[in-house]
């Protein structure tokens, strides 16, 4: 059951509609009607904080209640109200970090079983991705032991024109797949890496960093010159992440009051109150020397403009926050290096709860063309008891075992590696065969 059919609510509903009975509750009757026709879900108009509405939606029967309206307080109250009627697992989406901190201090507070802070997740994603040169997406698995990254190959990259076998010079790195235009290729030793490809690798954080440097042809010296445009909640939280890691940070915000608030919140950031589209200003403040520019304004269009303009003046890498998934591909085509979608980040976090209980973490790639998942292997799994080379024959095409974590150690899978029950495997899976694969694992 999903309360709140906003952007996030809809993405989740869409995601879950196959294979689950989804009930959506929203106050807006027009939206409810629209949903009923657009997706295969049952939608109910009403206030999710009222017990009457919850009963209409048969909350007592629900396994899971996801509260993702635009208001933090409403979401928390929905979870609290649910708990009075049923034992359903409750998930609340919040924007404010303070609520999350309160909840983390005592899990289960407010009757919330899991809390997702959209802006914080987005901010963390921005930080993770900008931390690796040339990366388009980065995610962590097995408590930070394993990392997944997607890189875009530029013509002057060292690996362009090599085969996977030639490029694989690292101990603990697995090449999972190559995306070429609209095509997805599972990586084999002979796969050619071409200019413009996006390649997905899974491995230890160190080897990923080394590989990233080779792909981009840069030496990562740690501290970066970062510019964030827009003192939005996402902008401020991303700035906090960068501040904590000692990067040189500048923030541009047009509104004097918000600029002042940001400057008060961020002691180590130089806040500039100006319009980020003012080229004279950009030149005067040498914005062109920045390593990364993050556009985190409130509107997708403004973010596009800011990122493109930054590219024009000479910023090395631009990152734009985009709410509307439909724009994402377009933005990347016109020259924004990385597009980060808060909805996708939130959905990644929530969707894993709707999967088999053993799914620990989910990362969506290429707008959910494929996923990288972390899963705990049970005794009855196809993988256990035989070498991986044999086991993969029993799995459908479009699956790559990226890494194995056993008792806190990282094991790089080779043909002869044997998976044991209790191991956590990080697997690349084509989204189309996802359910089938999860059952086998």
């Amino acid at each position, binding site marked *: 059951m999903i309360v709140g059919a906003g952007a996030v609510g809809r993405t989740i509903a869409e995601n879950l509609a196959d294979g689950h009975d989804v009930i959506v509750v929203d106050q807006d009757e027009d939206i409810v009607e629209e949903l009923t026709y657009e997706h295969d879900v049952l939608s109910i108009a009403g206030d999710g904080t009222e017990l009457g509405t919850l009963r209409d939606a048969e909350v007592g029967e629900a396994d899971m209640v996801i509260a993702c309206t635009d208001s933090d307080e409403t979401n928390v109250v929905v979870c609290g109200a649910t708990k009075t009627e049923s034992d359903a697992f409750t998930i609340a989406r919040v924007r404010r970090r303070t609520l999350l901190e309160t909840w983390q201090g005592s899990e289960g507070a407010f009757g919330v079983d899991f809390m997702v802070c959209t802006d914080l997740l987005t901010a963390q994603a921005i930080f993770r991705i900008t931390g690796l040169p040339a990366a388009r997406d980065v995610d962590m698995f097995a408590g930070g032991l394993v990392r997944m990254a997607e890189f875009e190959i530029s013509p002057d990259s060292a690996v362009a024109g090599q085969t996977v076998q030639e490029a694989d010079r690292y101990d603990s790195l697995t090449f999972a797949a190559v995306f070429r235009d609209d095509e997805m290729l599972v990586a084999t030793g002979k796969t050619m890496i071409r200019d413009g490809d996006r390649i997905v690798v899974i491995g230890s954080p160190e080897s990923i960093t080394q590989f990233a440097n080779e792909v981009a042809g840069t030496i990562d010296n740690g501290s970066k010159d970062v510019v964030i445009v827009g003192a939005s909640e996402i902008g401020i939280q991303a700035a906090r992440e960068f501040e904590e890691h000692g990067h040189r940070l500048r923030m541009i915000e047009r509104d004097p009051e918000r600029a002042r608030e940001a400057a008060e919140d961020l002691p180590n950031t*130089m*806040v500039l109150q100006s319009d980020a589209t003012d080229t004279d*200003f950009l030149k005067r403040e040498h914005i062109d020397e920045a390593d990364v520019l993050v556009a985190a304004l409130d509107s997708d269009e403004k973010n596009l403009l800011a990122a493109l303009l930054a590219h024009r003046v000479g910023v090395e890498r631009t990152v734009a926050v985009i709410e509307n998934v439909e724009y994402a591909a377009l933005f990347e085509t016109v020259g924004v290096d990385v597009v980060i979608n808060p909805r996708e980040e939130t959905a990644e976090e929530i969707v894993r709860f709707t999967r088999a209980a053993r799914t620990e973490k989910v990362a969506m790639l290429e707008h959910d063309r494929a996923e990288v998942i972390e899963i705990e292997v049970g005794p009855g799994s196809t993988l256990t008891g035989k070498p991986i080379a044999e086991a993969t024959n029993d799995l459908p095409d479009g699956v790559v075992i990226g890494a194995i974590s056993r008792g806190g150690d990282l094991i790089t899978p080779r043909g002869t590696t044997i998976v044991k029950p209790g191991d956590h495997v990080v697997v690349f899976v084509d989204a189309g065969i996802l359910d089938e694969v999860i059952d086998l694992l």
Partner: protein
Amino acid sequence: MYGYLRVDVRAGLSLVGTLTAALSVAYVVPIVVALTHGGEDLWVFVATLVATAAFGLSLRQLDPHPDPGAREAFMVVALTWLFAAVFGALPYVLAGDGAIAQPVNAFFESMSGFTTTGATVMDNISLDHHSHAVLMWRQLTQWLGGMGIIVLAVAILSEMAVGGAQLMRAETPGPGVSKLTPHIARTARALWLAYVFFTVLFIVLLYALQVLGFAENMTLYNAIAHGFTTLPTGGFSPEARSIEAFTPIVQWLFVPFLFIAGVNFVLWWYVLTGDPWSLLRDAEFRLYLGAVTVLSLVATLVLFFSALETPETGMVGGHIERSLRYAVFQITSITNSTGYANMDFDAWSGPAKGILLFAMFVGGSTGSTGGGVKILRWLVILKTLRRELFTTVHPEAVRPVRMNGRVLNEEAVRGIYAFTLLYIVLFFVGVALLAADAARLGLDVSLLDVLSASIATLGNIGPGLGEVTGPMGGYGSFPTTSKFLMILYMWIGRLEIFPVLVLLTKAYWRS
């Protein structure tokens, strides 16, 4: 007439009455001193006690249930201090000894006492010319004024509990009185407890030196007398030659306690309740420590390489211990506005006096007993000036001023600028008026005298740098009109200008 006044004068005056009556209890101390010293001047203090209590209690009748608001607070604080000084002057007049028997002089001495200025008009400071009780009263006025008579009243009188915070704010404005506890009375008590603790500790240590044979003339009377004027950064001494009268070891013992007096007592409360690191975490404390250390070192070098020599001290130039002792003692004493002298610093060389003049403008910390512009204000000014330089290069930069990790709002910053500018304007106006007044009567006063008289009274420091105002001289030779100006300066200086000046505005009295 009351109809169009927007200030509840009755309620305000009634509260002033209560406070004045409460202050009459303080006369018990000189009465006890008189009783233990052969009853000399006993009647003086009994009469003053009765007069003060009677005046206070009758004023209190104006309004049986006073409910003063934020506006009345300024009037209450300003008038309470004024009446304290007026009644505190009575004993000097009634005792009838020496120059301070003259009413204007007595008023000057009393105001100088309560405001912890330490400027004196007495010509013969000696127990041969004045009774033990009168000289002890002079010391006690400084002790009462140090932590503030309003703070004391809030700590003790239960009826002050509610409006107390506003009154305390008016008495020690600066950037904020931090409440240590939810109850203002407990906060006031905490401040006074820290104050009493250091006073008693200092008296015990001073007297211990005498008992151990290191300080023959540090009698119990002298120990208590100096305990009363060190922690409040007062500077009065019953000895004509101030601290010079004591042995070097006693002079060294003064230094740490002079330093303590210039630190925010809120910090001392944290230290005494088990958090000593709160001192170093405080940016104001660090700057105070740094300023005193650097100024002391520079002054030491200047004295060491000078040919300073006086009959009392012997050769100071080229003598390490003496240079260090005189420099450290004088810098500590002048910076936080105490004004003790362990030698006649009027004899110092020009450059050395220049350092002292600079130190006069520094002041103590906020929440300390010291006067002056206060370290915190200078710190804010330094930080905003640095910001100004930065924004000259980066015009779009938004840079809030932070103090101890907290953001200061721009209004507070503006208030600090206004205060400091007003302080400097008043200083120059004072110089001009004092010079004009002296010229009117054909008196020959040096420029250094008028300069230092203005800053020494406004900053509640006490002795100045010239021949007349110097530590071994006195303010007695200034004309009466100048004395009134200096009384005004001490008064507004102690209350940090605004609470008194606001009473002179039309807006205060009308809507």
